[in-house]
Structure formats: C-alpha cells, structure tokens
C-alpha cells in the first residue's frame, strides 16, 4: 500500500504544482466552459421554467466538454523532454502513476466545476437553496468515475495520431453511465425533489468507480509499459 500511495501522492503533488504555476489548462478549460454556457443559451429559452428540469444535463455537458480538455493535457504534458519515459522508469508502478495522475486530475476538475457552478446558477436562474452536501457527494463521485476513465485513455492516446479527437471519442461512450447518474442526481438536487428514490444512481456511481478503478489499475501496466 505504501509503495502505491507514496509515489502516487508525489506525482499528484507534482502535477498540481505544475498547474498552479503555469495555469495552462485550468484557465483555458474554464474559459471554454463559459463558451459552452453561452452556446447553450441559443438552443432554448434560457429564462423558461423548464430550464430547471434540464439544469443537471446542461451542467454536466459543460463539465464533460471542459473536463476532456484537462484530461487531454494530463499525459500530453509529459511528452516534452521525454518526461513520460522518465516517469515510467521511476521506481513507481504503473498503477501508482495512474493513481497520482487521477488524483491530480480529479482535484483540477473539481476546482473547474466549483468555479463554473456559480456562473451556471446565475446564467440559468438556479436558486441557491439546493442541498449542497448532496451536490458535493455527486460531484466527487461522478468526477472520480469520469476522471479515472479519462486518465487511463489519456495515457493510452498520448502517442496516438489525432490524440485530441481520439480521447473524447473513446471516453464519452464508456462514461455514459456516470454522466447519466450525475445528470439525474443533479437535476433532482436542483429541483428539490426527494433523494430516496434516486439512491440507485448513487449506488451506480459507487459501483462504476470501484469496477473501473480496479480495472484501470490492473490494465494500466499494459498501456504505459507495453
């Protein structure tokens, strides 16, 4: 466990430090999220009452589109100066590298989501009387599920032609269950309906995360080492 967590935390710290100093991804992804929010306003009447019932879907589409930008850079950043080779050669298992990268990406995505949420609620008239605790649970669970798949595929596509297109093409179909659960739960949270009938979606998120975190940890060796 120590061999896994030690290097993983070191890699996560490194990624977050690089991002804190360069801010190359988060600034761009946040601006892109604003662009998507703007584009949505043209597809329907943004002041209508029905916006509330589709608010979860809107929010998570913004998160998914902007999130892919962050994930794309996660391993692409390591191609400069052959950093990826050094990372693989370092005394850290492939699973530790994946875990560290996933942790860093989850923190970055959560920061991006936290920054986008207030703007979203202002633009689309979502009142701040929803259950913030539940929203946090959903954000963390769904972001982890999306990020763990996204990070594996970011590693997988890093040396592939058309990397920027390949990543969303592969990631979105597999993460559909996460997005469905997140959309459903977020909409319920925003509209103030009871949570009890929706617990199946929380279980889906937990199950998805357990299954794919395990699978990713087991298979990432083949991706990074070959």
């Amino acid at each position, binding site marked *: 466990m120590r061999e896994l967590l030690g290097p993983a935390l070191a890699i996560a710290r490194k990624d977050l430090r690089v991002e804190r100093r360069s801010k190359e991804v988060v600034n761009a992804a946040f601006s892109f999220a604003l662009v998507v929010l703007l584009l949505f306003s043209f597809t329907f009447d943004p002041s209508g009452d029905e916006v509330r019932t589709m608010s979860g879907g809107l929010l998570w589409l913004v998160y998914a589109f902007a999130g892919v930008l962050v994930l794309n850079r996660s391993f692409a950043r390591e191609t400069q100066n052959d950093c990826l080779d050094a990372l693989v050669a370092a005394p850290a298992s492939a699973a530790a590298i994946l875990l560290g990268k996933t942790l860093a990406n989850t923190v970055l995505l959560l920061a991006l989501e936290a920054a986008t949420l207030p703007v979203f609620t202002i633009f689309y008239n979502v009142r701040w009387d929803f259950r913030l605790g539940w929203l946090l649970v959903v954000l963390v669970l769904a972001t982890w599920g999306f990020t763990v798949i996204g990070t594996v595929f970011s590693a*997988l596509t890093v040396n592939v032609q058309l990397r920027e297109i*390949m990543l969303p093409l592969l990631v979105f179909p597999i993460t*559909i269950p996460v997005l469905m*659960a997140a959309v459903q739960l977020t909409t319920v949270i925003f509209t103030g309906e009871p949570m009890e009938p929706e617990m*199946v*979606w929380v279980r889906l998120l937990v199950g998805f995360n357990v299954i794919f975190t395990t699978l990713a940890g087991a298979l990432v060796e083949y991706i990074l080492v070959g």
Partner: protein
Amino acid sequence: MKSHADLAWGAATAAAMVGALYLAFVWVPTEASMGIVQRIFYFHMPPFVVAVVAIIVGMAASVRYLATRNLDWDDWALASIEVGLVFDTMNLITGPFWAKPVWGIWWTWDARLTSAFVLWLMFVGYLILRRAIEEPGQRAALSAVVTMFQFVGAIIVYMANRWWRTQHPQPVLAGGEGSGLAPEMRVALLGCLAAFLVLYLCLMRLRLRLARLGREVEGLRRTVHSL
C-alpha cells in the same frame, strides 16, 4: 488465391441465406397485429446476436493477445470486431424500418436502442483508434486494453439505461419480442440466426486472411525502408 474451401464456404453461406429468406418471407405465417413488417424481425434480431458473439470472440482474443503477445490473436480481435460492426450496423438499420410503421417513429431513446447505439460507437472508436497507431505491437496491446474497458463499459451502459427507462417511461415501449413466440416463428428465427452465424464465420475467414496479409505487407514495407 481462391481455393476449394473458399468456394465451399461461399456456397454454404449463399445456401443458408436463401434458406433464411425463404423462412422469413415465404414459410413463416404473417404476424397478426403488426402484419408484414414483422418479418423484418428475422433480419433484425439475429444480426445483433451475432454482433454480441463477435464482441465476445474479440474480447477473448484480446485477453489471449495480452497473455501470449502473439499477433495472430490481435488479428482475431480485429477481424471479429470489424465483422461484428457490420452486423451491429445491420441491426441498427433494420430497427428503424420496423419501428416507423409499428411505433410511428424511426427512433426512440429506449434502453435497448440507446445501448445498441453506444455499442456501435464503441466498435467504431476501437477501429478508428487502430488506424491511428502505426506500430503493430503497440497497436495490438492498446486496442486489447480498450476492448476490455469497452466490454465492461457496454454491460454497465445497458444496466444504467434500463434503470433510466424505468425512471422515465417512454411513450412507446418495446413489445416483448422473446415472450410467447409462435413455434413457426421460433423456427424461422433460429434458421435466420444459423444463416447469419454461417455468414459471420465466412466473413471471419476472409477477414483473418486479410489481416495476416496486411501484416505481411507492413513487414515488407518496413524491410524495404530499412534497406
């Protein structure tokens, strides 16, 4: 390069297909409520079953490749998934032709339709990924890993979509196809399924040979470049 075996396979597939057409269009009685359109079913459901068989074969071949590192298994994975995509496409195209007269719409985001479409997108993503990687060993390993993720993903997508539908009832629900099929219809269905399986095997033989030849050409090109 045509051999006697090729001719035999071609003849067997052609005979099976003619038999399937006879069963579906002449032999089986017309369904009472839906009428003549229901006959599409015999060319709709069997391709999907074959597509699922093709994925399972592709998945097993991918696992075998990662265990043995023998590129022959990569050929199997590629051939099976590419041929499977053809059958899945056939399933997705025949579906709306049946749905329009029966449901009144071409498409609905019902659990099975959505899952079938997601599955199709996964197949396509897999094949596009393969084209984007040059080195055969890397291509084989990465696409084998992707197959495993997609296999598990497809199962969860289907489960999630079932829950989604029970939460949001669709205006039109899929008629219980498997439930209470008349004996003649079952015979026609199984006959068509057998015919499509023969077609799958026939296409697999050809696609496997093509994959091996493709790899040979790639190797030759490499040799020429290194001269």
